[in-house]
């Protein structure tokens, strides 16, 4: 697998992860460039971020379902002011909440990259682009579907 940074403007320091036993499988899969989400084995409800109990039926067991990596923009902002000095090279950047295809009801907070921010719209189809931030961490970003290079 080829490792590369697709969003080098996004600081590595923000991507230092603190996974717990319930979130770790998501990040392990991300490292392998696989988009997954936990689905309750008892009732089928997805839950993100992953938590120890199903919010719907309060059972614990999950199946980690492999998703297409496609989704749609549910909402977004265009961040133009760097909140901290190390974000200066990143602005402007698009923060997007993405609904994941195949996992109804759950959303992922991410970025839409490789796009003119003024062209981003709610409902825009996007697909994942894996950002290998460092030797340990891979973060899912998104690009407009038609421009996908994955």
């Amino acid at each position, binding site marked *: 697998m080829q490792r590369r940074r697709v969003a080098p403007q*996004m*600081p590595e*320091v*923000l*991507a*230092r*992860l*603190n*996974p*717990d036993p*319930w*979130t770790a499988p998501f*990040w392990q899969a991300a490292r392998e460039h696989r988009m997954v989400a936990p689905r309750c084995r008892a009732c089928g409800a997805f839950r*993100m*971020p992953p938590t120890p109990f199903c*919010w719907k039926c309060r059972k614990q067991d999950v199946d980690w379902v492999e998703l297409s990596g496609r989704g749609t923009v*549910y*909402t*977004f*902002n*265009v*961040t*133009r*002011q760097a*909140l*901290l000095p*190390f*974000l200066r090279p*990143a602005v402007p*950047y698009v*923060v*997007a*909440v993405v609904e994941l295809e195949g996992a109804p*009801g*759950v*959303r*992922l*907070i*991410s*970025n839409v990259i490789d796009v003119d*921010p003024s062209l981003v719209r*709610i409902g825009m189809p996007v697909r994942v682009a894996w950002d290998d*931030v*460092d*030797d*340990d*961490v891979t*973060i899912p*970003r998104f690009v407009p579907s038609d421009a996908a290079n994955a």
Partner: protein
Amino acid sequence: MSIRNSAAVVGVGSTPYYRRGESWPQTTLELACKAILAAVDDAGLRVDDIDGFALYSMPLDVALLAQSLGIPEVRFTATLTGGGGGAAGSVGLAAAAIHGGMAECVVSFLTLQQAQRRFGAAFALRQPDKNEKKGDGGGAYSGMPHMPEMDFASPSGLIGPGQMFALLAQRHMHLYGTKREHFAEVAISTRENAIRRPTSLMREPLTLDAYMSARMIAEPLCLYDFCLETDGAVAVITTTAERARDLRQKPVYVLGSANGGAGRWGQAIMWMNMPDEYFASSGHRPVAKRLYEMAGVGPEDIDVALLYDHFTPMVLMQLEDYGFCEVGESGRFVAEGSIRWPHGRIPVNTHGGNLSEAYIIGMTHIREAVEQLRGSAINQVKDAELALVTGGPASIPVSGLILRR
């Protein structure tokens, strides 16, 4: 059984308001003590009468405060969980303590001194630590405990509350056709109220042109959609309705208070997985319903609304969630001048709010409600009988309070 009419706010006190950091060298504790002493004096009480603390947003250690002021006996202390969402609810908590016989004279306050630590600048961020061994999961947090949930927000550069609320605002615009001009009306009407008040930090008129050409911080939000960053402290004292009748000020009774929210509203802006049906809301709907039920009144009975205004779109969404207009209609509602003092259908933030007077995490709204119901407000709503106060749209609990004269 409820707290309805069982307690009254009898004293309010405050320090001057300062731009961020400019209260220095006064300390956080010092500001708190000044506000509390002023509130005690306003009420015609003595410090020795204070026996309880009902708080929110963890302003400082009650133990430190109690030893510093020499409170003879502390009989009740509690803090609503969460942050600024609990502002209005802290007075409800005080009323609950009083109603339950736990304490008789309860202080709620907030103190903010940002010379050393800036509040809310980047509350989802782990501070970079040069000594941190890479990948060991360590590192110090800025104001937040170690939370694996934040791994699902921070890497995207989503670290500030304004950015987070921008996501709700964008969705509201998409669903209902809300426009930046509607956000501007909140900012401008609030500024108009602030201009007439000597306590306000922002007293220059704000024009629509200035609003529209201001720098964008996190689109769709610009500079004027954000509240101020200020220092200061505000305290209020709540006591039994019975005792209130014999004190210096006309009592302002607690007609109702509620806090909480839907469990699946949850961490709200920190997780963004709230149900679609109320994603673009303030999270207040269940609280509003319970509050009106307890108070036995509806939105049509409210004379003045002090709505927590950290970001302009969240005032719009609260207007909807508290029933002043239909869900989705708040933009058009404010465009008609409905929230303007003195002639709008429901004057909002007559004190200038967090946006233009001062940001003491919502306590200024409680102060203004009390002044309105005493009839001593600068932008007085004529014959105001009922005031609604809300805590900040945020993770749960959010809260509301209805006071009556």
